[in-house]
């Protein structure tokens, strides 16, 4: 099975000289197609940096990132923007919805700005999957946090990306709505054939994934297949995280 995204010898240094911080230290990781992968680690372990670099939002100091078989370092800014638009979806902790637009408009705006027509049947399927049917005409301020994050998940999936990156998607939600969102991400993988990479520090969230990758001090230190909250917690404590 080919990887949807992979990092090869990924190294990221912030700053220079004495104040330089090594955020990623020659990380090799592959995210397989049709899988749900969680990236875990203590704060400062480089997990968000890894996600941003693999998603093309930030550039590496050394090493390579491949989306499919495209090396991101070979792309111009313009091509990189286009690749993110066509092949990558994002879900963030803070939802990042546009307050003046309705849920529906938020979901289809990326396609419209890209000068494309959204695939209506697919968008309907996505909206149904996240259970937003009757809330589509509401603005974000009229929606609960959980509903806003559902809109963000639907927006990420609407463009039929190759891979969806979620950065602490449940960080602003209570555990029940958080579980709903994780259920949708799980369903996006199982029912819609999507690929999801999620950064999280919650073992219960990681338990929704097919596998967990553990980061510490900018390195991959461990991995776990078919995780449960308990096995993730055990592994975290043995890593001293």
């Amino acid at each position, binding site marked *: 099975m080919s990887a949807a995204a992979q990092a090869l010898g990924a190294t990221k240094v912030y700053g220079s000289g004495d104040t330089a911080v090594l955020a990623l230290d020659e990380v090799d990781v592959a995210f397989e197609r049709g899988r749900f992968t969680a990236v875990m680690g203590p704060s400062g372990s480089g997990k968000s940096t890894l996600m941003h670099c693999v998603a093309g939002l930030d550039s590496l100091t050394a090493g390579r990132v491949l989306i499919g078989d495209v090396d991101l370092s070979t792309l111009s*800014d*313009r091509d990189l923007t286009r690749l993110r*638009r066509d092949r990558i979806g994002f879900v963030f902790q803070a939802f990042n919805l*546009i*307050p003046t637009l309705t849920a529906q408009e938020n979901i289809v705006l990326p396609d419209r*700005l890209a000068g494309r027509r959204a695939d209506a049947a697919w968008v309907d399927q996505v909206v149904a999957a996240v259970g937003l049917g009757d809330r589509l005409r509401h603005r974000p301020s009229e929606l609960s946090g959980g509903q806003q994050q559902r809109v*963000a998940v639907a927006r990420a999936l609407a463009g039929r990306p190759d891979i969806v990156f979620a950065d602490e998607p449940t960080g602003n939600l209570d555990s029940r709505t958080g579980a709903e969102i994780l259920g949708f991400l799980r369903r996006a993988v199982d029912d819609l054939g999507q690929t999801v990479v999620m950064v999280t520090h919650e073992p219960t969230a990681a338990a929704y994934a097919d596998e967990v990758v553990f980061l510490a001090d900018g390195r991959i230190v461990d991995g776990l297949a078919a995780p449960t909250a308990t096995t993730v917690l055990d592994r975290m404590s043995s890593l001293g995280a």
Partner: protein
Amino acid sequence: MFTTLAYCGPGPWILVFPLFWFGLLALFAWRFARWGPPWRHRFGGGQSVLDEMYARGEIDADEYRRRRDVLQETRR
């Protein structure tokens, strides 16, 4: 005496104006297809990239405003 009998239709110059307008329209159509609608280029390419990033949720509203201000300042 004035007569129109000798008149045997317009010369080829009659085509100049239609061709001119056709060419102009074709140019607009090509530009539109190539770069998208011109009203998206109010502030140049940087602005549309920024709009798309905001629309996809890659940056939040504060980040969007901050970067937009920088873009507009450098343009002034």
